[in-house]
């Protein structure tokens, strides 16, 4: 027996069908909107990454016979990597660089800046601008600017400054190369840390601080017991972003030291460049790049678990 045209059952069915059509249309629209980004992601991120993995199993080179007739060599590049002292050196240098500049330098100074600039101090906007300025300079330009500060022995700007205070100048990039690139990268990254941590600080309600003050808490107690714990998700997020992006730093350090002297500042990114575009061994360079990618992935997964965030 057919239901009458306006029966509740038919109305529900009509509504349900209309909703499905509407949902499908919305899904299609969303897909269309996402399509350009997906296409770019596929073309410039996914495909190159997959191609690198493929390359890492070949002996492809930029010149020589292997440029014309590359061969599949299996895991030979990875076996070579395990026995390559320069690769392990690059990993160690990168680890120290990440810990020194991102984890310690940028975070500590960024947090101090974020806390300080929340207060009503004179010239607050000026200080904010000064902290943000390093980000305005492109990496390579910043690198060359710091070369004038640090290279040239007694002629270097830093040497002239320390001489004024009675300290013996040095060839800073030769004598303290790793420390210098850590300082330069810290300088460059404080702004990002400050911005993210300021956002984190602004999520903490003032009432909690007021209550703590009424209970007689000191500023340092409030910082340790309120600010840091409540900011932990932001801090972990910052650590994730800065660690992964610092592993990939290339232009700044290459402009400064080219990975020297003697590999003292040869980050894994510079090592990949040197293998691929100086020694022209694309296959081996790709293998190192794949390993660096895996390390970044493991780091990322570790941080995400620590944040207990569902991705």
């Amino acid at each position, binding site marked *: 027996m057919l239901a009458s045209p306006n029966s509740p059952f038919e109305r529900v069915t009509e509504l349900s069908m209309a909703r499905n059509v509407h949902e499908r249309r919305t899904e299609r629209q969303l897909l269309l909107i996402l399509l350009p980004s997906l296409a770019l992601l596929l073309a410039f991120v996914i495909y190159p990454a997959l191609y690198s993995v493929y390359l890492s199993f070949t002996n492809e080179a*930029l010149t*020589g016979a292997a440029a014309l007739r590359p061969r599949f060599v299996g895991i030979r590049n990875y076996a070579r990597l395990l026995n390559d002292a320069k690769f392990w050196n690059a990993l160690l240098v990168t680890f120290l660089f990440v810990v020194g500049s991102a984890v310690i330098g940028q975070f500590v100074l960024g947090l101090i800046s974020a806390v300080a600039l929340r207060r009503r101090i004179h010239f607050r906007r000026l200080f904010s601008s000064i902290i943000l300025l390093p980000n305005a300079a492109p990496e390579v330009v910043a690198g060359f600017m710091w070369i004038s500060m640090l290279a040239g022995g007694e002629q270097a700007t830093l040497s002239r400054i320390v001489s004024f205070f009675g300290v013996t100048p040095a060839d800073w990039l030769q004598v303290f190369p790793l420390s210098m690139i850590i300082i330069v990268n810290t300088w460059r990254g404080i702004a990002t840390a400050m911005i993210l941590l300021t956002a984190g600080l602004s999520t903490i309600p003032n009432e909690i601080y007021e209550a703590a003050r009424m209970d007689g808490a000191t500023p340092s107690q409030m910082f340790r017991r309120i600010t840091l714990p409540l900011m932990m998700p932001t801090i972990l997020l910052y650590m994730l972003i800065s660690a992964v992006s610092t592993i990939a730093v290339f232009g700044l350090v290459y402009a400064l030291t080219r990975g020297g002297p003697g590999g003292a500042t040869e980050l894994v990114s510079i090592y990949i460049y040197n293998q691929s575009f100086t020694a022209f061994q694309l296959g081996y360079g790709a293998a190192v790049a794949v390993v660096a990618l895996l390390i970044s992935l493991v780091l990322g997964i570790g941080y995400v678990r620590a944040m207990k965030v569902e991705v």
Partner: protein
Amino acid sequence: MKKTVIGGLCAILLSAVSTLAHAETIRIANHGQSGIDAMKSTVEKIEKKYGVTVEVVEYPAPDKDYLTKLLTELGAGNAPDLFSIPTTAAVADMVEAGYLAPVTKEIKAWDGYAKFYDVAKQLAVSPDGETYVMPFMLGIQEIYYRKDVLDKAGISTEQPKSWKELLDRAAEIKKKTGAYGLLFPAGVSWGSGAFDEGFQHLIVGSKTPQLVDADGKLDLNGEGVKDAFDVYKQLIDNDLMPTQPLLGPEPWVVPKYQMFPAGKLAATTCGSWCYIFDWGRESKNPIPDVTKVVGTWTVPGQSGGQYVLANLAAPWAINAKSANVELAKKALMEIGSVETQVSYAARIGNIPSSKDAAQNADFQKLTELVPIHAAAENGTFLKQASGFGTVAEGVARATEALLRKETDAAGAQKILVDYVKETLGDEAVK
């Protein structure tokens, strides 16, 4: 609708006509402003003679970065039609990679070829017997020393006759003047210079004067290689050459552009270009009366003999995948002209490969280069082979370890051999 279609058809027709009317374009890669300036009149000549447009593309210096960019573009298939190759060591590998078009027939048929020095003709022939480059300029390398510094200290300026005499002279310079006695480019930062301007000087006069055997294998385990590294070790350990600047970026700047003009470095290997580019009229820190104040020694052999080392200086080649190979070949012959050679010699200081340059009025004005040009008749060279680019990089790494006092001569040889084997495979090394 009709108007739109007609308008579209007219636009297509117009663009087709304009394409046909537009002259063919050939792209030439050049390296450094001096090279571009030197090529200006040649480019105009090519454009006029063949009715083409020449697009000169400047590539970044230094040599290492230029070569990287060039090889990347060759690998990607979008390199220029014509380009110079910054180091002879790269030529054999580029031939093997299929990047270069052979020009044997054209060069031999060209009337300028007969006038080239034999050493230029020999250097241009690749291991497969074909010619892929126009050897229009030679880099003649010797040891350049400060006559005035030595004369003032009462040190002999006689030609050293062996490696021992050379090292003893360097030690005497250090003892009597406080200046560094002798520089051989070394280390990774110097790029191919560690091999081109240093190591190979010693190898040609050593117990194993070639690095390639009859089968085309790289002979790197010979005694000559170890002895050559030992010369570096003695210079470094006895503080006879500056080391710190060689570990930083642009390592040639402090020793060659600052120390040598200031007399704090008394001798260094260099090429004829140094009289013009490093210390002469094109220099930012010239030495006054450079030809009187700076003398030359040929590199002595290990136990005697004298060697005038010749390289091809930035030879020109044609992209094998060029859309205009035949046109590029014609342009290549124009680049080989005496006028272009003299123009380069004036701006960069390399030596024309053509004997006819000696009669050129403009070249005769380059008095610092005229005697060196004549010496090219007796030039010697290291036979090139595939893998030489890797050998050059291996030498850079081995000498870097010596600079950092991390190894001895035998250890440096091992670093070289291991690097070449790792990169090219065990079968590449004898």
